[in-house]
């Protein structure tokens, strides 16, 4: 764990009930699900786009680290986990606890 990796083998993926769409009015992406939705920040959008069910959390974090050289891998991993945990609590991602 000292290198910031989680070692988690799960490959998170958006739940079936979730649709991602671009919002022309705000320039942000929206995660839509029954009755409501979430407006995503730039980083959140990047994470969501990587949740294809093919990558583990560590792979997602490593991928993001390449384009965000100003942030440490440890921090990125933590942000990814926090965000996915919030989504999982609402049943919006599968394969992440």
């Amino acid at each position, binding site marked *: 764990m000292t290198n910031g990796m989680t070692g988690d083998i799960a490959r998170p993926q958006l739940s*079936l009930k979730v649709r991602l*769409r671009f919002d022309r*009015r705000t320039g942000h992406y929206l995660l*839509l699900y*029954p*009755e409501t*939705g979430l407006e995503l920040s730039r980083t959140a959008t990047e994470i969501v786009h990587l949740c294809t069910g093919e990558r583990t959390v560590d792979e997602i974090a490593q991928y993001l680290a390449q384009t965000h050289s100003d942030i440490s891998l440890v921090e990125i991993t933590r942000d990814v986990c926090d965000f996915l945990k919030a989504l999982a609590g*609402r049943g919006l991602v599968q394969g992440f606890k």
Partner: protein
Amino acid sequence: MNNEYRPYTLIAELTYRCPLRCPYCSNPLGYAGYGNEIDTDTWLRVFQEAEALGVVHLNLTGGEPLLRDDLERLIERASRLELYTNLITSGMPLTFGRLSRFAALGLNSVQVSVQSSGPTESDRIAGAPSFHRKLEVMQWVASLELPLTMNVVLHRDNIDEIEELIALAERVSADRLELANAQYLGWALKNRVALLPTREQVETARTIASKARERLRGTMEVIFVTPNYYSVHPKPCMDGWGRRFIVVNPEGLALPCHLAHTLPGLRFDNVTKRDLADIWHHSDGFNEFRGNRWLPDVCRNCDRHTKDFGGCRCQAFHVTGNACATDPACSLSPDHGLIESARSQASQSAGVPILFEYRTGRGFSQA
């Protein structure tokens, strides 16, 4: 363009016709006297105009939307417009084949209403045999991997079954369970004595629902909506008048809420005569209760008005006779006594059977 007044959701009330006769139906009391339903092309245009205004959620509802034979075309267009489309239905009349077509055309989720956890009570409340069919429909929804919301309108005759209702929702693999106390407007107001639960009933149900919410977190979302007769402050009705929702009723009136056209003296426009964006931004009806101008003094001097907007306009009118009054459900309202007396009536008549007055009017068979 600022987002203060941006509609996110279009509630398309496709018809007031329905095979059921629920005594708390949210359609207006006089629904049978309304004009003709607007046609397919008008709805398709409304969807397009709504999307251009910022709408991302579409609720196809009624009455019973399945009674429209153009539902396929509506779903197809909504999906092309990337609207998150939810079908709100009693489940009748539907076949597995038609539901599969909806799914293939891009329907995003289905909400099925259930009146009670067992067939006898459910059919009695719905005013028609329907429970078994609803169960079957919910199983179809799950088998097509469509997200399912099971919705139950709670009242004094079914609120004690909350455990059984939660178990039923789990059994049909619902993604969401909406346990929504009746809102006492329209038919529910007419039937208030037969529907309003006691405070104890509400509290017990709320406690059970919160435990289930914790236990099921991440698997099934459990939503419990308190009757506003038992909350200290009102809810922000429709997230504020003309802020987030547009309702278009079966004859094409564009409204800020289901019953706005029952308020006297307001003028609402029809989508067949005026563009939706023009109605949203400039019509008198939509502007009537926006901003603070109209607020009664009680609310103006209360800092909650930025959150609840003074509560529900329809409740203000239908209970106090004044649409500009503070929502009487608010404990600070000078008319709150009217709500208190309804509550004490509920506790006095607890346990005494009271008959419903079923929704009547142009029904399914004559449609």
